[in-house]
C-alpha cells in the first residue's frame, strides 16, 4: 500500500509491527540453523546458548501481541490494515511455537551428545534443516515484499520436507530395530526430525497468513499431504511374540 495514513503515528505503528515480525522470524531462522549445527557437531555448550535464545523469541511474541492489540483498540483498522494486524497476531503465535521446537532440538542435542554419532542420518537431517531454514527465509522475504506467489512456493516446498521426514523416520526406525543399543539416540532423533517437520508446518501457516494479507483470500487447502510417517512400520516386528 503506497499511500500513507492521514494519522502518521498509525503508519509508524504498522511499520513497527512488521519490523517485529521480521525480526522474530529472523531469530527463529538462525536458531534452527544453530540447533542443527550443535546436534550434528556435538556441541553441548553451544546448545545451551541456543536454548537461552528462545527467551528472546518468547518476549517478542508478547511485544507483538501487545502492539497488535493496541492497534486494534486505537485505530479500529479496516481493509488490508486489519488483515495485516490480525495476521501478525497469528504469525507471532506460530513463530513462538517454531522457537519452542528449535529449543527442543538443542535440548535433545545435549542429551545425545555423548552417544555415538549417527553419521548415516546426519547428512539427511542437515539437508532437511536447511530446507526448512530456506522456507523460513523465503517466507520472511514474501512478508516484506508482500509477494503472495512466493508464499505459495513456500507452501509447495513443505511437501518435500514431509517426504524427507517420512524417509528419515523409516531409516531411524530401521537402525533402532537392527541395533537396540541405539534406542536412546534414535528415539531422540525421531523427535528431532519431527520437530523440524513441525517447524516446516508452522512456516506454511505463516505463508498462508501472508497470502491472506496480500489477497484477502484464504489459500485453497487441498494440497497433497506428503508426511506418511504415521503409516511407517518395520517389517518382521512382532513375529516372535
Amino acid at each position, binding site marked *: 500500500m503506497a*499511500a500513507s495514513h492521514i494519522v502518521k503515528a498509525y503508519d509508524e505503528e504498522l511499520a513497527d509491527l512488521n519490523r517485529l515480525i521480521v525480526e522474530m522470524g529472523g531469530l527463529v531462522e538462525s536458531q534452527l540453523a544453530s540447533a542443527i549445527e550443535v546436534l550434528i557437531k556435538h556441541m553441548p555448550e553451544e546448545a545451551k546458548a541456543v536454548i537461552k535464545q528462545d527467551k528472546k523469541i518468547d518476549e517478542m511474541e508478547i511485544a507483538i501481541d501487545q502492539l497488535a492489540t493496541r492497534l486494534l483498540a486505537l485505530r479500529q483498522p479496516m481493509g488490508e*490494515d*486489519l488483515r495485516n494486524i490480525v495476521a501478525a497476531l497469528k504469525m507471532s503465535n506460530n513463530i513462538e511455537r517454531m522457537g519452542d521446537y528449535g529449543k527442543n532440538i538443542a535440548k535433545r542435542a545435549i542429551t545425545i551428545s555423548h552417544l555415538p554419532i549417527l553419521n548415516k542420518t546426519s547428512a539427511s537431517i542437515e539437508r532437511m534443516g536447511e530446507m526448512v531454514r530456506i522456507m523460513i527465509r523465503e517466507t520472511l522475504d514474501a512478508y516484506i515484499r508482500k509477494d503472495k506467489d512466493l508464499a505459495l512456493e513456500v507452501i509447495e516446498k513443505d511437501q518435500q520436507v514431509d517426504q524427507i521426514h517420512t524417509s528419515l523416520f523409516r531409516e531411524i526406525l530401521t537402525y533402532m530395530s537392527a541395533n537396540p543399543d541405539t534406542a536412546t539416540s534414535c528415539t531422540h532423533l525421531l523427535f528431532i526430525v519431527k520437530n523440524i517437520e513441525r517447524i516446516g508446518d508452522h512456516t506454511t501457516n505463516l505463508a498462508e497468513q501472508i497470502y491472506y494479507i496480500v489477497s484477502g483470500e484464504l489459500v485453497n487447502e487441498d494440497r497433497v499431504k506428503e508426511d506418511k510417517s504415521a503409516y511407517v512400520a518395520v517389517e518382521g516386528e512382532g513375529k516372535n511374540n
Partner: protein
Amino acid sequence: MQNETEKSTEKTAIKIQAKNVGVSYSGMVALKDVQIDITERKVTALIGPSGCGKTTFLRTMNRMNDIIEGCEVTGEILLDGEDIYDTQVDPVVLRRRVGMVFQKPNPFPKSIFDNVAYGPKIHGLADKKDELEYIVEKSLKRAGLFDEVKDRLNAPGTSLSGGQQQRLCIARAIAVSPEVILMDEPCSALDPIATARIEELIDEIKERYTIVMVTHSMQQAARVSQQTAFFHLGELVEQGETETIFTNPRDPRTEAYVTGRIG
C-alpha cells in the same frame, strides 16, 4: 423446502432500485450515474468523505431534493418497481412510505404524544382516539422509548435528552407505517451510550423496514449494516456485502478510505 425457497427469495428482494441517477445543484454536478439496488429489510450504509454525494443520494429516495431550488435529478429511482419521480406520484404519499430521520433530533414543539400522533393524524391512519393511542404506544415501544416516557406523554418532546429525542423521531417516522426509513447520520449528535441504543434499535426494526443510513462512522456502518455503498467525488465507487467492503474491498479508493488514507 418450500419455506427455504421462499425465505431465500425474500432475502434478495429489491425494495429500491436506482438507475443512472444524477443530481446537480444549479448546474453543479453532485452525483453522477449511480446504479444501486437497495435490499428489502436490510440495513444499507452509505459511506464516503464529506461532499461525496451520499446525503444527496439519500435525499433523492424520498424526493427531499424537490424543495431545494435549482436541484435537478436525472435517471430513475424505482420503489417496488415504480418510478418515484413520475408526475403521478404525490411526494407527500411517497414520504409516508419512505420516512426520514435526520442528523440532529428535531422533535416538533409539541408534546411527546403529539409528536408521534401527528403523522397518523394528517395521513388519516386513525379515526378514533383509542386507535391513535394504540399507534402512539406501539410506535414508542418499537422505538424503545415507551417505558421511559409513558408517565409523561404530555411533556414537550424537547424536554427529553438528545438520545431520547432521536428515538422519539424514529417513533414518529415509524408511526405512519413506512416501508423504508432513511437515516442521515442519526447518531452524529449523540453520546456513545445513546448511539449504542440507536444502533440496537436499528438492528431490531430492520425486521420490518428497509433502512438506508448515511454515516461518517465506518465502525457504525460495519456494526449495523449488511450492505455498504462507498461514494467518492459524486460517484458510487463500490457496493456490496458490508463485511467485504471493510475487510477486502475491490476498489483501491475504497481501500484507501476505509483504512484512513483519504478523507
